[in-house]
């Protein structure tokens, strides 16, 4: 086991395309680090550079205490799991697991011990004599994992290992990945484009975009304190609602005004977000998580201080425990490059409505007790303590610690 440190790593392809741009990342010993981002953001390239399958154009990669820049992949002591499994089809499961050990001239007894242990851990014992063609997708995936486990490497590298599985299997494999990591405690770098996977698996998550690091943090911090519009829009499903708004001062204190609504901004927010007071009287981009809404009727008891927002539900998505309410607000959609990029990338659960005039579609996640139906007028309450404010030109979150330093 070892830590992995990337410092100022660049990857420039022939033709001058910069796939990874000055990436600095420190993955601690035993950590589960998830690299997430839309396709083409350089996350797979970064992983393949750690593996040694791609040369790096600049910078330094350190695994453990060795600089591995020019070390061939087999000497880096890492194991990789691929999206399409990449099993050897002419070998049985047992031979697949043992292949890497055999090439490393390990004694036979040790090989069969490790293969046996891995097979037991992954529930593959009864399939050891089968060829991969006779296995289901999930079983093949487990063999691919087993091939990595038996090597007992310093680090696991996983390139979207679950995306070829069907949805249900993916969830259960996610859980077994989690337990496997708990048990083995091996440093793991995991690449995915699925932000739900990123949130549920990662000790920390690294959000990349166009080869640039956006934010590295725990999943909860990414969700609560996104550093910019892109991260805010990319993480979380359904994704955050944005609107161009203005920060104003009224008799009752500060408020944010948009589309005919006025939401008071609590004083604690100003205390949290240093520098936000300088934006009073200026335009900002406001972000509200769908989960910070609630149906006023369903939430009657404990939503006393919350602000009410009368809207008309256009579409409802009933998820059993919750309902996603899609409604239009009377303001043009935010066309900041960051929100557009994030919306393209996120898995689009939102139904696309033909937008009438200059209106934007928002989503509220309310409790299923609400029984709201499409076309109904309902009152939503907003938790104003969790409002997100972004600078309309830079797209950076106002008052975020990481942005204050710059």
């Amino acid at each position: 086991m070892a830590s992995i440190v990337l410092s100022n790593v660049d990857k420039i392809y022939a033709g001058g395309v910069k796939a990874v741009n000055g990436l600095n990342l420190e993955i601690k010993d035993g950590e589960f680090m998830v690299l997430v981002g839309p396709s083409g953001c350089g996350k797979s390239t970064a992983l393949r550079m750690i593996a040694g399958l791609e040369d790096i154009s600049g910078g330094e990669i350190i695994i453990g205490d060795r600089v591995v820049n020019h070390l061939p992949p087999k000497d880096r002591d890492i194991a990789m799991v691929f999206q399409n499994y990449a099993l050897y089809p002419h070998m049985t499961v047992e031979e697949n697991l043992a292949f890497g050990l055999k090439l490393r001239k390990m004694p036979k007894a040790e090989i069969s011990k490790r293969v046996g242990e891995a097979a037991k851990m992954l529930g593959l014992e009864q399939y050891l004599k089968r060829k991969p063609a006779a296995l289901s997708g999930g079983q093949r995936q487990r063999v691919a994992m087993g091939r990595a486990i038996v090597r007992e490497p310093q680090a696991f590298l996983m390139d979207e290992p679950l995306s070829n599985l069907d949805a249900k299997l993916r969830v259960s494999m996610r859980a077994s990945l989690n337990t496997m990591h708990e048990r083995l405690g091996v440093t793991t770098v995991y690449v995915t484009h699925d932000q739900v996977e990123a949130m549920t698996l990662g000790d920390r998550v690294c959000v990349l975009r166009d080869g640039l690091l956006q934010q590295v943090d725990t999943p909860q911090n990414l969700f609560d304190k996104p550093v910019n519009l892109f991260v805010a829009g990319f993480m979380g499903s359904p994704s955050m609602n944005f609107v161009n708004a203005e920060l104003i001062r009224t008799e009752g204190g500060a408020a944010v005004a948009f589309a005919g609504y006025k939401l008071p901004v609590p004083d604690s927010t100003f205390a949290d977000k240093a520098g936000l007071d300088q934006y009073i009287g200026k335009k900002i981009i406001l972000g509200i998580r769908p989960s910070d809404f609630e149906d006023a009727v369903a939430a009657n008891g404990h939503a006393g201080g919350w602000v009410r927002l009368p809207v008309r539900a256009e579409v409802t998505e009933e998820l059993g425990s919750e309902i996603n309410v899609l409604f239009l607000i009377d303001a043009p959609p935010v066309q900041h490059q960051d929100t557009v990029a994030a919306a393209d990338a996120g898995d689009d659960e939102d139904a696309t409505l033909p937008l009438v005039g200059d209106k934007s579609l928002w989503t509220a996640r309310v409790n299923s007790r609400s029984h709201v139906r499409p076309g109904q007028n309902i009152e939503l309450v907003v938790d104003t303590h969790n409002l997100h404010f972004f600078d309309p030109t830079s797209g950076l979150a106002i008052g975020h610690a990481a942005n204050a330093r710059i």
Partner: protein
Amino acid sequence: MSRTGTRARVRKPRRLRNLGLHAIVVVIGALIVVPIGYGVLGGFKSNQQLSTNPFGLPSPWVVSNYTDVLTSPDFWRQVGNSTFIAVATALIVVAAAALAGFVFARFAFRGRELLFTLFTMGLMFPFAVAILPLFVLLRSLGLLDNPLGVILPQAAFALPVTIIILRGFFRTIPGEVEEAATLDGCSAFGFFWRILLPMARPAIATVSVLAVVNSWNNFFLPLVVFNSPEWWTIPVGVQQFSGQYSTDTAKVLAYVIVAMLPALAFYAVAERQLISGLTAGATKG
């Protein structure tokens, strides 16, 4: 009602068409089977029977024509020569073409496509055109009356098509498998030897069968290269035999029929490989 009506209307032309197809198949089959059947039966006749009763069943059945051939050491030597030359050709072709196909399929280097085109151009080079310079070359290399004088040129002429088929197949193997092998500790050649070749077994089988069959049927080159009967292959032997025993037609028929048997047997075993591999190469290459 109307539905059954249309169905009946459809069925009639289909049956007609089936009949037509059957007729064509029967005619084509007859074109092939009748001469062979004539040969098989003719081999069981004496020459006198052949002239008096060319189309009937032999009476009495003369077995000596076949037994003579099967007990002749010349015939067995020719079978041995043909087999040896065919197997050696196939081994050389497959070994060389697999390595070349591997490089063409999985390595990116400057001039790769140009080189590959150079190989494929060999396809457009008819063997007969090359026979004279080839003969001169073999003579100066001292390879006349030497099996290598047949094996090496045959292998060279079989290279283009073999490389094309194998490269096409190698390209279908996903890059991740190679990367997984690299991470497991394979060198480039290790990947070729331990992963790629075993995975390409169907394609290897196909090109091997092709090479064997082509070599087995080759007549021109062994005829030119082998002067001494010691190295004659089956096709040359058949030709020489029919020249030598031109009056003994029954014996010639028996010889030809027996000479066909090894090739037929090989086809029967390898036919599936040949067909499936050829189509696989066609769609994936």
